[in-house]
């Protein structure tokens, strides 16, 4: 028996290691939104490196943009001043609408919705592989973050937190293939599920009978249990209606540019 074990020692050790790897993966599948001690330790260990690299690269980019790469700055300045004049006029118009909105709300007896608390965070790293779409931010459990919190920017939703260490957290972006968000088309309230496709999104389970147009805005429906209602998700860029079936498939262009994410907001008050 011992001879047999010695002869196949390497093969047996390989099989044992493979079994351990399979069991670990299988166990993790059941508790995805749980950050293990090992994960917390590695995230914590990587955090100072990330912060240093992030600071150095930001400084280098600032040096390049502010002092070296100044071609066309004068033309840009003129164009921006013109744009600023137009925006000022637009802002005045919006202030009028805001006041009108306030008056109407008071008239209808609506309660003023309190502003959602938000924790600003900086993106310090992206996913280590090319296949998944996650980012690492510089805030963690010490700042009040937890797994499953929505992450947004001014343009729309970004994703949700999946792993939290004390000073860093990882965020699953909505464009990841394993991400799903309950959404609706703003114009005609068609409901569906937005699923990530790497760079784009698809809107699935939208009823075929509903008329949806290219360019329609899509917002969160608030029914998924993670994101609050009404946050921008994207706009419809392509409509695929088959000859049969209950649903139509819609392609969405996300409202957020995920290649240029730098600062985000985490909404801690929106835990499911």
């Amino acid at each position, binding site marked *: 028996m011992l001879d047999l074990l010695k002869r196949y020692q*390497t093969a047996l*050790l*390989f099989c044992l*290691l*493979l079994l*351990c*790897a*399979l069991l*670990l*993966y*299988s*166990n*993790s*599948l059941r508790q*995805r939104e749980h950050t*293990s001690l*090992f*994960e917390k330790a*590695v*995230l914590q260990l*990587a955090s100072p*490196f*990330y912060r240093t*690299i*992030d600071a150095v*690269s930001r400084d280098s980019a600032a040096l390049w943009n502010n002092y070296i790469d100044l071609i066309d700055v004068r033309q840009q300045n003129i164009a921006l001043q013109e744009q600023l004049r137009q925006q000022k006029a637009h802002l005045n118009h919006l202030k009028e609408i805001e006041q009108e909105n306030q008056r109407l709300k008071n008239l209808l007896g609506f309660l003023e919705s309190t502003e959602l608390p938000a924790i600003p965070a900086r993106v*310090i*790293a*992206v*996913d*280590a*592989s*090319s*296949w*998944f*779409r*996650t980012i*690492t931010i510089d805030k963690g459990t010490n700042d009040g973050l937890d797994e499953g919190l929505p992450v947004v920017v001014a343009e729309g939703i970004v994703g949700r937190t*999946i*792993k939290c260490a004390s000073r860093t957290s*990882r965020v*699953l972006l909505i464009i*990841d*293939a*394993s991400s799903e968000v309950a959404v609706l088309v703003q114009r005609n309230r068609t409901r569906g599920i937005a*699923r990530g*496709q*790497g*760079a784009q999104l698809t809107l699935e389970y939208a009823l075929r009978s509903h008329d949806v147009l290219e360019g329609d805005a899509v917002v969160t429906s608030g029914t998924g249990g993670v994101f609050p209602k009404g946050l921008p998700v994207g706009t419809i860029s392509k409509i695929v209606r088959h000859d049969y079936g209950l649903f139509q498939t819609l392609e969405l262009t996300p409202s957020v540019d*995920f*290649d240029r994410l730098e600062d985000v907001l985490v909404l801690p008050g929106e835990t499911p």
Partner: protein
Amino acid sequence: MKRMIIHLLLGLVFILLQTTLFPRFLGNGPRPDLVLILTLYLGIHEQPFQGALTSWLLGCLLDVLSGTTFGLYGLILLLVFCATVIGGRQLNRDNAAVMFFAAILGTAAHDVLLVTTLLFFADADQGWLIVLRQLPLQLIFNLLAVLAVTPFLNRTKAPKPLSLLRTTR
């Protein structure tokens, strides 16, 4: 044991590069998979069990900073290592072209294993489409990575036993 720690530290540096520096120049899409190249190198040059353990730990490190499920890359890199050990030992390991050959087959095997694991165990839906779409560019990046990284990896190679040197002389 010393080489195992060196390889793990090297893996950590590679992961930091993959998460910070590469995305700044190459965006969120395909970028050189240095950890895969390290695993292939271990499969060709390292002792089977020590290499397997290192590959699994490298995968687990990668899992902390990639994807959603801990253990996925641990499993995949271990399987890639096993395949490299079985296939790579038949080849002349001192030939520099072996690493390029391993990178081509290893990238393809890695992607097939990733797609299969995601389809069998997780709800990845059309995640396999992303993997397949990026495969050609990923292959080019990995071949370039072999060219850049192999000289550094060769410095961590175990010295040849004296007895072997005497017989060859």
